[in-house]
C-alpha cells in the first residue's frame, strides 16, 4: 500500500451549494413571448463558472429560446439576463463574450477548416502570428491537424462536429453554447464524443451550456441539468439527484425508465409512510417527507432496476409483492419483466444478466415475487 501514490482528496465541484459563489449567468424573471405564444415563462436561474450545464426538455419547451437569448439572437420580452453581473440585453451578438456551436454546425462552406477556425480571430484584428498559433492550438485540441486545408464538404460528419467546436472555442469565450451538438452523429460516435466534450471542457475551463432533448446525453456530460417543460424549469439538479430524487412525476417519467404507481399515502412513522394503490395488494412502505398529510393522493415512483425478481418471497425486503409475468424483454445486458400485480397494476422490473444463460428460469405466466427496499422509490405529491 505504501508505495502506491495516494489519491489526493478532490474538492467536489458544486458552486451552486455555496451561498458566497457568484453566478456567471443569471436569468431574472425572464419571459419571452412570440406574439401570443409564451416560449419562456417568468424563469429565474443561476449558472456558475466552469459548469457544464444542460437544458433538457422535449421540443418546444423553450430550451432553444433560452440559448438564443444568451447568444443575442433573441431579446427577452420581460426580465433581465445578467452575465458577470452586467445586463446583456443591449449588447449585440458580435460583442458578447459568448460563442455558440450550432446544431447544423453552420460551417462556412467556402472557407477551409483552417479559415473557419480563424474566422472569429480575424474579426478581432489580432496579429497574424497570434491567429496562426491559436488556430494550430485548436486544431491540436480537436485532433484536426491533418484536415486544416480541406473544405467542410471534404470531411466526415464527426470531423465537421469537431471543427464547429474548435471554431466556437477559438475566441476563448466566457460561455460556450452548444445547440444539440451531437444530434447528427450516430450512436457510437456520439458516446465517444460526449467524453471528448467533457475532456475539452475540463481542459479549457470554459462554462458550457448545452441544449439537448437526449436525456442520456445530459446525464453523461452535465454537472447540473435543468429539466424544462412549457417554458418553465421543472427541476434543476445534479444528474444523480434528478434521477434518484425527481421533484415530480414529470421529471421521473422524462428521465429514464420508471414505474409510476398512483395511490394514497398514510403516515406510519417519523419519516415512513405506506402507499395503498389497490384493494387486493399490500400497501408499499416508503420514505417520505415530514410535511405529508394523511390520505393525500400521491404517485409512487420506482425505477425498474431497483426491483428484484425472485421465485420465492425474500425475507429481508420491506416491500414484496407477488405477480404474474406478462412480458419479457431480453436486451442482452438486461432483461425487462412486465409483471401484473393483483388489482391490475403493471410493474416493470429490470434484472442484469450478469452471467451467461442466467435468469432464464422465468417464463411467461410464471408467478414471481417483486421486492425492494423502503428507500428504493420516492413518494411524489405532484
Amino acid at each position, binding site marked *: 500500500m505504501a508505495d502506491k501514490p495516494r489519491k489526493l482528496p478532490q474538492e467536489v465541484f458544486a458552486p451552486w451549494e455555496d451561498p458566497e459563489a457568484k453566478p456567471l449567468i443569471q436569468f431574472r424573471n425572464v419571459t419571452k413571448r412570440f406574439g401570443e405564444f409564451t416560449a419562456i415563462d417568468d424563469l429565474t436561474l443561476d449558472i456558475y463558472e466552469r459548469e457544464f450545464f444542460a437544458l433538457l426538455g422535449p421540443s418546444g419547451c423553450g430550451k432553444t429560446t433560452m440559448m438564443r437569448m444568451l447568444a443575442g439572437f433573441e431579446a427577452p420580452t420581460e426580465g433581465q439576463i445578467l452575465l458577470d453581473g452586467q445586463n446583456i440585453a443591449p449588447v449585440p*451578438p*458580435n*460583442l458578447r463574450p459568448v460563442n455558440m456551436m450550432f446544431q447544423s454546425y453552420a460551417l462556412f*462552406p467556402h472557407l477551409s477548416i483552417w479559415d473557419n477556425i480563424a474566422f*472569429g480571430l480575424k*474579426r*478581432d484584428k489580432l496579429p497574424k502570428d497570434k491567429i496562426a498559433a491559436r488556430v494550430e492550438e485548436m486544431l491540436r485540441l480537436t485532433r484536426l491537424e491533418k484536415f486544416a486545408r480541406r473544405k467542410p464538404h471534404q470531411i466526415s460528419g464527426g470531423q465537421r462536429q469537431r471543427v464547429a467546436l474548435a471554431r466556437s472555442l477559438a475566441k476563448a469565450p466566457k460561455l460556450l453554447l452548444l445547440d444539440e451538438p451531437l444530434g447528427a452523429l450516430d450512436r457510437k460516435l456520439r458516446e465517444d464524443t460526449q467524453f471528448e466534450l467533457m475532456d475539452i471542457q475540463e481542459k479549457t475551463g470554459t462554462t458550457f451550456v448545452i441544449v439537448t432533448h437526449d436525456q442520456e446525453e445530459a446525464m453523461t456530460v452535465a454537472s447540473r441539468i435543468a429539466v424544462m417543460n412549457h417554458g418553465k424549469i421543472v427541476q434543476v439538479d445534479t444528474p444523480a439527484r434528478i434521477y434518484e430524487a425527481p421533484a415530480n412525476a414529470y421529471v421521473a417519467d422524462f428521465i429514464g425508465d420508471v414505474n409510476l404507481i398512483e395511490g394514497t399515502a398514510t403516515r406510519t412513522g417519523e419519516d415512513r409512510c405506506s402507499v395503498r394503490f389497490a384493494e387486493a395488494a399490500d400497501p408499499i412502505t416508503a420514505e417520505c417527507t415530514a410535511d405529508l398529510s394523511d390520505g393525500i393522493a400521491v404517485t409512487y415512483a420506482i425505477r425498474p432496476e431497483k426491483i428484484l425478481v425472485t421465485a420465492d418471497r425474500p425475507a429481508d425486503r420491506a416491500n414484496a409483492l407477488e405477480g404474474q409475468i406478462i412480458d419479457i424483454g431480453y436486451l442482452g445486458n438486461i432483461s425487462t419483466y412486465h409483471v401484473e400485480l393483483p388489482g391490475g397494476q403493471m410493474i416493470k422490473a429490470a434484472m442484469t444478466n450478469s452471467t451467461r444463460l442466467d435468469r432464464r428460469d422465468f417464463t411467461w405466466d410464471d408467478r414471481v415475487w417483486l421486492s425492494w427496499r423502503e428507500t428504493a422509490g420516492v413518494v411524489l405529491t405532484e
Partner: protein
Amino acid sequence: MRRVSWFNLTSLTFGFAFLYLPMVVLVVYSFNSNKLVTVWAGFSTKWYGELFRNEAFLDAAWVTLRVALLSSTMATVLGTMAAYVLVRGGKFFGRTLFSGTLYAPLVMPDVILGLSLLLLFISIGLDRGMVTIVLAHTTFAMSYVAVVVSSRLVSFDRALEEAALDLGCTPLDAFRSVTLPIIAPAVISGWLLGFTLSLDDLVIASFTSGPSSTTLPIKIFSAVRLGVSPEINALSSILIGIVTVGVLTFSISSKRAIMKRMREENRAET
C-alpha cells in the same frame, strides 16, 4: 451501350430540327458569296469582312455591349438588395406591395413598360440616349435578378449568418464575408440573365433610345426592313457563335464542379 429506341430517335431528330434548322440555314447562307440571300453561289467569307468595315454596325454593337454591362451590373446590385430585404426582412409595412411591384415587370408586356418609361423620361426632360436605355434595362433586369437571388436566399441556412455574427461580425460584415460568397453563383446567374436580356431587347430599347444611340437589335431590325442582306446573316452567325461558346463553357464548368464535389464528398465519408 444501350440502344436508343426507334421512337426516341425520331422525336429527338424532329425536336432538334424544329429548334435548330432555321439557325443552320442562317449560318450556311452567311457564307454565300451571292448578294441575293436566297440564291446559293458558292462559299465565301467576304460578308464577314464587309461587316467589320461597317461603322454603323460596329457602333451599335459597342453601344449594346456598354448598355448590357452597365445595366446588368446595376440591376444585380439593386436586385440582390431587394431580394435580401424580401427574404430576410421579416414582416415590415408594405412588404406585400413591395414584392408585388418588384415582380410586376416580369409579367408586364414590354410595350407597356417601354411606353411608360418613355413618358417618364419626356416628362422629367431627360434626353433619350444611352443613359435612358441603361435605366430602362436596369428596371426590368432588376426583377429577374431579384427572383434568381431570392430563390437562393430562401434555401440559405440562416445559421451561417448567425454564426458569423456570433464570431464577431457586424451584420454588414456577415453579409460581405459569408452570405455574398455563398450566394455568388446565383448573383452571377442573375447578372448573366440581365446581360442577355439587355443584349437582345428590341422593344424597350426602341422606346427609350435616341438618335445618337442605337443598339444592335434596333439596327438589325431596321436593316432587315429594307431587305435581308448577307451581312446581317454574318452578324447573326457571330452572335450565335458567341452564345454557343458561352453556354457550353458555363454548363461544362458547372458540371465539372458538381462532379468534383461529389467525388470529394464520397472520399470524405469513407
